[in-house]
């Protein structure tokens, strides 16, 4: 960000919003916005409590498992769709239906199918993340040069070699972009799962704090969640920039 011709340090916009938040909080306009300093004080108190740490553990477990499934299933499916016209025409309608579907409305159905436990929460998380990962991997493979594919064939690449040594790498910039967006959606998915399926983890904390109008605690948990999602997303953004040197030269 530039201001008056000077380059500002990264994320300085956050400081502006934090200052504004603090001012509004101190003016005591609404109970909904407590001063951000108070939120942070609450935050540091909160993260030392066992319920919070348990909630973090439960949420992280469901989140990483869900994201893991979304990545491990989504990337190969997307690559195969980009590679094989038949699979693409077979699966693309479903991917497009689910990427625009209100998945929250589907959660009760999942509960009937998979019960009220962690399993359903993990599946919800996966369902939130997987479609964009599939679509991006597919788009990544579809833009691979025809000659790159022919090169693999003419030098006798086995299907497995072609997959792991050519397609996966050639589509990596798009795949990483898809995983980054998928992870952000998975954060939503895991919380929605924890709110609707069984009240555990961060979902339980949100439920508890908002129904008791404990806004400082509510915002504190939200900031923790934002911080985690932001860190992962920035890390993937960093990986994306590392491979961007060849994104333009494929």
């Amino acid at each position, binding site marked *: 960000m530039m201001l008056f011709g000077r380059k500002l340090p990264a994320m300085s916009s956050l400081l502006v919003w934090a200052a504004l938040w603090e001012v509004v909080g101190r003016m005591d306009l609404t109970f909904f916005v407590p001063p951000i300093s108070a939120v942070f004080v609450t935050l540091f108190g909160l993260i030392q409590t066992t319920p919070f740490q348990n909630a973090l553990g439960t949420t992280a477990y469901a989140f990483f498992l869900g994201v893991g499934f979304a990545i491990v299933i989504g990337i190969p499916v997307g690559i195969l769709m980009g590679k094989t016209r038949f699979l693409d025409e077979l699966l693309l309608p479903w991917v497009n239906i689910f990427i625009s579907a209100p998945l929250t409305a589907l959660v009760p159905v999942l509960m009937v199918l998979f019960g009220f436990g962690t399993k359903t929460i993990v599946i919800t998380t996966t369902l939130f993340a997987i479609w964009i990962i599939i679509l991006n991997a597919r788009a990544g493979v579809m833009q691979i040069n025809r000659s790159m594919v022919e090169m693999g064939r003419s030098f*006798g690449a086995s299907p497995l070699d072609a997959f792991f040594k*050519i397609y996966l790498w050639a589509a990596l910039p798009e795949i990483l972009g898809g995983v980054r967006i998928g992870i952000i959606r998975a954060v939503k998915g895991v919380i929605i799962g924890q709110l609707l399926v069984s009240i555990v983890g961060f979902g339980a904390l949100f439920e508890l704090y908002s129904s008791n109008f404990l806004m400082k605690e509510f915002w504190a948990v939200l900031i923790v969640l934002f911080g985690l999602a932001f860190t992962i997303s920035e890390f993937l953004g960093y990986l994306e920039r590392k491979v961007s040197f*060849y994104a333009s030269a494929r």
Partner: protein
Amino acid sequence: MSQINPATLADARPALDSAVSVRNVSKNYGDVQALKNLSLEFPRGELTSLLGPSGCGKTTLLKIIAGLLPQSAGQIEVDGKTVTGPGPDRAFVFQDFALLPWANVLRNVAFGLELRGVAKSEREAIAEKYIREVGLAGFEKKFPHQLSGGMRQRVGLARALSVDAQVLLLDEPFSAVDEQTRRKFQEDLLALVANEKKTFIFVTHSIEEAVYVSDQIAILLPRPSRVSEIIRPTSFRGKGVDNIRRDPEYLDIVDEIWASLRSYVE
């Protein structure tokens, strides 16, 4: 100078050893007939150019020989064996290089061997040898985006050489490099043909380039494609790279080819 009608060619030189035979090959894309009943022999150890106006199907023919495209009718034989798909007896050099942008020069050159399951140390030793041969020593750890277009095509050439295929298929390999680099390439290619004892099939749209590098030039005419004539330059091949371009036969052949192609160029 000798110019032989393709029909009499087989009778004139029956003993000539062919590395690649194309027999009555046709290729249809839907209703469009790209190649029609095309036959052509590629003598072993020589460089044959496929030359013709754009749309004459020369790249299509090359890709059929490579096994990358199926023909609609007819037969391709490499060393007497019928081609059914890509094989280790043929290696392809691509117009746009087709290098792995995420791999360095060494891995790119060794990639053909990597796909054939050759052990790492062995394939890298072979790759090193061909990297030196194409003049890229010292660039082993560089990535394709750090190289010029000409150097990238040298990587593509080294990759094709290192798999030690008997037939090298080159699809307009120098069309994406600048004029001076291209001239250097053409000289190097002559040395390569002389040293490597491989059969080269070379697609180009440049008449001068075809006449300069070829032992045999097949002129393809379009719609549908067929071989209109085969030209075998005789006198200037042994005179050294510096003298070819002012040899009377060279100039005559260039003029003559242009005269026969002129009417097909829009």
